[in-house]
């Protein structure tokens, strides 16, 4: 029981941290919003693990659902909604945002 919880928390924590880094690095804004919602969903699962089921329900509904909806609508409204057909390695990450304008 205890050891299983530790492994689940380790997995979820690594998933959330990598998704959080991906939010700052990925170039496509839709993918960034999706990664932010992955962080919120992992947070809801961690709340269940920490014996806070009501907070987990609210986080999953409001933090992951409503917030992602707001951000996705904002992406559409700001004119950043674009889906590339072909994905190469250089088009995936926004590492050199200084050189070209941040897409």
């Amino acid at each position, binding site marked *: 029981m*205890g*050891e299983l*919880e*530790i492994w689940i*928390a*380790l997995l*979820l*924590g690594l998933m*959330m*941290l990598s998704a*959080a*880094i991906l*939010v*700052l690095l990925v170039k496509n*804004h839709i993918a*960034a*919003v999706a990664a*932010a919602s992955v*962080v*919120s969903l992992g*947070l809801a699962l*961690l*709340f269940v*693990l*920490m*014996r*806070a*089921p*009501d*907070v987990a329900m*609210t*986080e999953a509904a*409001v*933090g992951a659902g*409503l*917030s992602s909806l*707001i*951000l996705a609508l*904002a*992406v559409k*409204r*700001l*004119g*950043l909604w674009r889906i590339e057909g072909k994905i190469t390695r250089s088009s995936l990450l926004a590492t050199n*945002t*200084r050189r070209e*304008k*941040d897409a």
Partner: protein
Amino acid sequence: MIPDLTLELILYSTALGLVSIGLAGLVLSRHSFRRVLALVIAEAGANLMLVLAGYRWDAVAPIVTTLGKQPQMVDPVPQAMVLTAIVIGVGIQALAVSILIRIHQRYHTLDRNEMAELMDAEIAATAGTARDVSQESPLGERPIPPITGSAVQARGGRS
């Protein structure tokens, strides 16, 4: 099993990592929408740390099921506060996004530096004063000769 790797250590490091990643993105990003996303991540880390403050590993969820003697419960007060903070966080996101939409309608850019330049120019034009060329320029006499325009452009700045 590593004996030092407890559940609370993992959760605290996750919360600290989320807060620091969010703050780093808030400071380092140039695109304004990405800064809103960084704010979301920092808020998630802060919520995790608040719930973690009332966590005990040997306690049950704070729900009263039986009358009489209760088992040990985790602290319900931080959970109630986090419940409020989640909803307020979504309100802040909506406000930030609406401000971004207005900025995009007015200036047609979301880059942080370009936004600041355009706002400075508009404020100076409205007030009828000459706008200052650079916010980093010294107030008094220059101890060294000023940099020429071509050298400024070579460094990536505006003349």
